[in-house]
């Protein structure tokens, strides 16, 4: 199916009149390919966390939307993303995550690259024992760097290289959450989660966007943060989601709380927000913890969710906090797990040939529609 065959006018109508994205957007490999080109490549998509490259000189290969990428923290600590291929014969350079002591050596003909991407040497390229050739210009043959940006511990890439600068493209997001300027700390292995779901990537984002399902799918959460405590967030084309005026989790019997991020306004003393950053991240902002929930699209009907919880103070990594960290991570994991059956259930439901994309609640589904409108607009651009 080509974009010319898609009629998405019903999707981009105001929420009260709109229908959701058609079934093909969940069941068609062709639409999945179209979304790669139209939704992901022109935008800033999240691929992972800075904590995936925990030390200077660390490199992690990854495949994102079929692209072989190499996430690197160079020897100066700067996080970069390259295409994970040698400029010579296109060989995959790094097969496993781990430390790079000095240079990346291609396992095929041993062209060597510095971690900032520069081509350091080209052994025997001019004949045995001659590592230079007039037509092999090293300054033109460095690693293919992908435009990337780090924000709130997450690594974003713009694969087509044509998007506005991250700060300009995301001005509203950065302004709304600009108070969160403190360092983020990964504390304990339980704060990282990987969840595989048999569902299209969008369903995870759609589910996170609205609070409507909370009393039914997350009754435990609703017991202290009720549906009426929530409000919608809608910034067309950029992000949407939900906020709660109540955030006061009980993680220990004595009421102890994790240390807060410094410099936050009053809004955050009792509230929390969960914006869905377009296209593929759910974010949890709280006064004393932050998490990123990156949805990695694998196929039209398969996704992997990568979650990393960050804390405000490195002392939270200590033994004194281990039980609270464990309870906190477990609580979030239970919520994320509770969502699996609805996300996978909607995926199955999208095979119903008579389903028309769905009717939105004008009161409750504004954020979901905001996301559908973003996707529909992007694929038609």
């Amino acid at each position: 199916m080509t974009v010319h065959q898609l009629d998405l006018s019903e999707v981009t109508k105001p929420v009260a009149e709109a229908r959701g994205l058609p079934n093909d957007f969940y069941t068609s490999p062709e639409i999945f390919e179209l979304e790669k080109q139209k939704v992901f490549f022109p935008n800033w998509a999240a691929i992972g966390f800075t904590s995936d490259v925990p030390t200077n000189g660390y490199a992690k290969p990854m495949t994102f939307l079929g692209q072989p990428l190499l996430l690197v923290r160079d020897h100066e600590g700067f996080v970069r993303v390259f295409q994970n291929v040698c400029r010579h014969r296109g060989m995959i350079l790094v097969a496993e995550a781990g430390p790079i002591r000095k240079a990346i050596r291609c396992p095929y003909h041993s062209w060597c690259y510095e971690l900032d991407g520069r081509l350091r040497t080209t052994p025997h390229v001019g004949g045995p024992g001659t590592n230079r050739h007039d037509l092999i210009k090293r300054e033109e043959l460095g690693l293919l760097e992908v435009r990337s940006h780090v924000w709130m511990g997450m690594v974003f890439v713009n694969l087509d290289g044509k998007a506005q600068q991250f700060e300009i493209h995301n001005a509203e997001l950065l302004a709304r959450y600009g108070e969160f300027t403190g360092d983020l700390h990964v504390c304990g292995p339980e704060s990282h989660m990987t969840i595989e779901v048999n569902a299209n990537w969008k369903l995870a984002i759609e589910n996170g966007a609205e609070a409507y399902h909370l009393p039914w799918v997350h009754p435990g959460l609703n017991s202290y943060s009720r549906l009426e405590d929530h409000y919608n967030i809608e910034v067309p084309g950029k992000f949407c989601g939900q906020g709660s005026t109540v955030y006061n989790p009980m993680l220990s019997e004595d009421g102890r709380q994790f240390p807060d991020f410094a410099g936050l306004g009053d809004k955050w003393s009792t509230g929390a927000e969960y914006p869905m950053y377009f296209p593929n991240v759910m974010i949890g902002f709280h006064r004393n913890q932050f998490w990123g929930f990156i949805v990695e699209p694998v196929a039209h009907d398969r996704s992997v969710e990568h979650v990393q919880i960050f804390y405000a103070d490195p002392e939270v990594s200590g033994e004194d906090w281990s039980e609270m960290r464990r309870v906190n991570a477990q609580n979030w994991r239970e919520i994320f797990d509770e969502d699996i059956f609805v996300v996978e259930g909607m995926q199955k439901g999208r095979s119903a040939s008579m389903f028309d994309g769905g009717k939105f609640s004008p009161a409750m589904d504004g954020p979901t529609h905001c996301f559908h409108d973003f996707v529909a607009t992007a694929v038609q651009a």
Partner: protein
Amino acid sequence: MTPEELHSAILAAHEATDGARLVELYAAAADLSEKQGDRDATCFFLTQAYVFALETGHERIEELHLRLKDYGRDE
């Protein structure tokens, strides 16, 4: 070490993926070739040593690089 012993040791180091050992063995092979006045073989072995030095972050990186540059074989 004789050239034959060196050859066997290099194969064993490749088998063991022992990059630091490969640096020393290829550098020794380069020294041997240099004494024999075989410029091409010297630079071949220097290159091998240099590549594994780069990969392992070996302390001889700059020395090996300089020798190759002096021979006009690297940039």
